[in-house]
């Protein structure tokens, strides 16, 4: 199937979103669900065709004389496309419950920008060359800006400033020149097997600088010190944080890096030249420090945000270790972390809507009121930590195994230390909720669990987190198709 079709459902639904508007909100959200389902089915079709070994590519639009926009399907993109389209449907179900339960304003604008961002994510997933990826990356930044500032109050606007400031200036200041550098050295920007830089004759130093430009230029990967936008973006409504800042936006960042490492540099080029050596300490630092910062945060969403930063650097590290095992682990971690983290965010939103609580210290005894939510939170937390029976186990295992291939024990010990920290900052939350007594002054509050739509969504993502442990087959099959060299 021509991957360009995947852009259509999210774009075509926009007139319906605006047309139905607030007045017919059931129809509006029904339209989004239909579009989301169609999009997911399309991605499934692409997935089947990829397994069958078909070449699926779109036409080209020449925005520059030598370089054009085009979409080409490859296994990594299929993983990301499937993930994002599936979670779009789930998140829409969830936002119906959340946005109504929370009486958010301007919901039509919210859903419109959301749809644009999803279309751009599809373009990023199936980008056939670096230029397309860059364009999609920028569209995602701009279209999610109104979502971050959605609430419109001063804090939201300030956060929006940080968000767009960091993401735009890194992409224009570092990502763009890196891309042009590649373009002038090799004369092409196409993603191709084994990487286009493998025989471009760049020196080790140049490769190291170029890789650095990519790692820091892709600010969405949130490697410290360019991580500030991510906690700032948490002022957005929870569904935004859930889909965009646990899946679409941040995963576009690491996905881009994985794709660049595999198809622009080529894993062998990086491994052989050692170009990534100076960057690995940055990711290790981010993994550890973000976990420690998460530990100190009492606000639930802020804690999850720092946890995301730490987990993203796992994937960046996996990409930079540049062994086939670690990069496969990185690709799988995109999925595993997405399901785990989106469950946690959904739970955080459900707690906010259902119990009007947003801090870890207020969680005491909450498990009795919202058993399903807190149980799902527990599963999501296990997924992030990487304990059985959740899918996170496999990806973490692969990354750790891949790091041993490089012959040092430093990176694996970083990963293990961070796992301990994960346990320390995530598990106390469900434990508190289930085992601590309800505080005196709250004993008479009568509130139930979250809205039904929210609970369905949480149930789905939590069960997928578990299912991926028992049935990782479809995912590993796809990952094994990635052409390494």
């Amino acid at each position, binding site marked *: 199937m021509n991957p360009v079709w995947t852009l259509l459902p999210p774009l075509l639904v926009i007139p319906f979103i605006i047309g139905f508007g607030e007045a017919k909100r059931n129809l509006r959200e029904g339209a989004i669900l239909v579009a989301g389902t169609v999009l997911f089915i399309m991605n499934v079709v692409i997935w089947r065709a990829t397994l069958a070994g078909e070449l699926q590519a779109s036409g080209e*639009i*020449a*925005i*520059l*004389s030598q370089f*054009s926009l085009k979409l080409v399907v490859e296994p990594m993109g299929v993983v990301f496309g499937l993930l994002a389209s599936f979670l779009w449907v789930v998140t829409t179900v969830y936002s119906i419950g959340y946005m109504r339960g929370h009486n958010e304003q301007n919901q039509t604008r919210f859903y419109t920008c959301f749809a644009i961002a999803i279309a751009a994510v599809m373009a990023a997933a199936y980008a056939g060359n670096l230029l397309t990826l*860059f*364009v999609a990356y*920028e*569209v995602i930044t*701009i279209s999610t800006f109104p979502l971050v*500032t959605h609430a*419109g109050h*001063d804090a939201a*606007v300030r956060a*929006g*400033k940080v968000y*767009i*400031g960091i993401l*735009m*200036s890194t992409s*224009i*200041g570092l990502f*763009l*020149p890196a891309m*042009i*550098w590649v*373009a*002038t050295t090799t004369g092409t920007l196409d993603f191709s097997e084994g990487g286009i830089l493998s025989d471009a004759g760049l020196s080790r130093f140049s490769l190291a600088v170029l890789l650095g430009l990519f790692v820091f230029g892709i600010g969405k990967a949130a490697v410290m010190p360019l991580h500030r936008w991510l906690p700032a973006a948490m002022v957005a409504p929870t569904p935004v944080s859930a889909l965009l800042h646990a899946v679409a936006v941040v995963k576009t960042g690491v996905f881009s890096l994985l794709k660049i490492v595999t198809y622009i540099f080529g894993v062998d080029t990086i491994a052989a030249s050692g170009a990534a050596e100076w960057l690995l300490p940055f990711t290790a630092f981010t993994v550890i420090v973000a976990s420690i910062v998460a530990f100190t945060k009492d606000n639930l969403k802020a804690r999850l945000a720092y946890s995301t930063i730490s987990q993203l650097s796992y994937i960046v590290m996996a990409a930079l270790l540049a062994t086939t095992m670690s990069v496969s682990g990185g690709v799988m971690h995109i999925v595993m972390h997405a399901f785990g983290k989106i469950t946690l965010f959904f739970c955080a939103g459900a707690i906010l809507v259902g119990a009007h609580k947003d801090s870890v210290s207020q969680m005491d005894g909450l498990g009795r009121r919202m058993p399903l939510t807190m149980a799902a939170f527990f599963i999501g937390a296990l997924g992030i930590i990487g304990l059985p029976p959740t899918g996170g186990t496999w990806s973490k295992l692969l990354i750790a195994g891949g790091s041993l291939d490089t012959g040092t024990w430093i990176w694996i010990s970083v990963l293990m230390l961070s796992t301990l920290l994960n346990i320390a900052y995530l598990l106390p939350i469900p434990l508190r909720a289930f085992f601590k007594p309800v505080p005196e002054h709250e004993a008479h509050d009568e509130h139930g669990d979250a809205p039904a739509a929210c609970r369905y969504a949480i149930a789905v993502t939590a069960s997928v987190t578990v299912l991926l442990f028992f049935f990782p087959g479809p995912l590993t099959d796809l990952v094994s198709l990635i052409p390494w060299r």
Partner: protein
Amino acid sequence: MDQLPALQVMLPLVMAPLVVIVRHPKWSWALATITSFLACWVSWLLLQQVMDGSVIRYAIGGWEAPTGIEFYIDRANAGVALLVSGLSSLVLVYAYHSIQRTVDKSKHYLFYAGWLLCLTGLIGMVITGDAFNVFVFLEISSLSTYMLIAFGSDRRALVASYRYLVLGSVGASFILIGIGFLYAATGTLNMVDLAVRIPDSESPRAVLVAFSFLTVGLMIKAAVFPLHGWLLNAYHHAPIAVTAFLAGTATKVSLYILMRMFFSIFGDDYSFGLMLLNWVLLPAAIASFLIMSLVAIYQTDLRRMLAYSSVAQIGYILAGISLATQQGLTAAVVHMFNHGMVKATLFMSVGCILYRVGNTHIPSLDRLMSRMPFTVVAFIIAGLGLVGVPLTVGFVSKFTLISALLEQGWWPAAVMILVSSVMATAYIGRVIYLMLFREARGSTVTSHGYREVPILMLVPMYVLLALGLYFGIFGSQTLSLAEGAASTLLGGYQ
């Protein structure tokens, strides 16, 4: 069809006195607009004829060159003529309402007559093949520009106009002196003939003097840093329609002449090989976009901020020229078009703001989005184009320019361009931020709602915006035109 080159210049030139005779404010506007559209159509036809690389040489009055004056149209200048006449047409449509606000009704006919003369001069400069004729048309356009600027709504416009008059005259005299020396050294004024005779000239020193005078004179007219002093006040205080027109065209035409001179007349070996011009142009370019972008961040008036940004953008074009390579010139030419479109759109939207809000003081623009959504959306999209966000024209030019620099290994210059892009993000972002969100420190003008501007102002603005987006997505079209222009310029006259 053969007479098209003459028609291109004669049309606005003849219509200008006619507008004066008509005198009626509305009719003079209609006449000027129709004329401009016709001129645009003529440039379009001319561009079609030369697209394949052919050259039109039109001898005026049947007097063949090198004795007579000729119009010389090829791929390098047909596009520029189209840019000038096209922008003039769109901005004239836009000017109808905006000029009613700033210019007294009894003087409308003078304004539109001046506009047509300015158009004549600019197009004439572009398509003429005679060095002295360049000066003549330059004076026509300059004198009418002084007049147009002086029509500005407050009295500072007079000072701005006077300053431009002084500096513009200095520039024009330099150009005249340069042409005089060239004539003395070679005995010809025809540009094709000059290109042939300059290498064999018996007085190389006179050629050198001519070269220097012409370079400096044209750099003044093109507002290259640090010779940009006239531009800021002129753009700030002129009627906004004039600013939109000039920002898109006037400096671009001077830059075109500069390129024609460096590459076609003197030849690239002389200008860049012998005269080491890149060591003059590149520092000027870098200083221009770095300093001017930085200054733009601190401006409190939107028009002034955009004026500084214009000087910065001229720096980008100059950086492309200073490379003296095929790719560098392509970048310069394509940025001429792209920036022309973007800056005209920006000034048009600023004009809409001026029309309703009454001033362009940046702090008074808070929350403008809720009052004038169409204007603000146009400003935002054009602003993103200025920054160089993908899918806008700005991205096409920035990508081409940076890859041209990297191709030559001039990566420090490329880094500077990126730094200045980030600054552009800051100064445009600051305004967008204000327009979208409330100013934290107590907002001033929230009580009364502004209405959107008349449709006649919105339509040309959106047409230009749509063109900008179209060429941002299908950038290979403008790029192929620019590549043709660049190879024509580098190839010299056949």
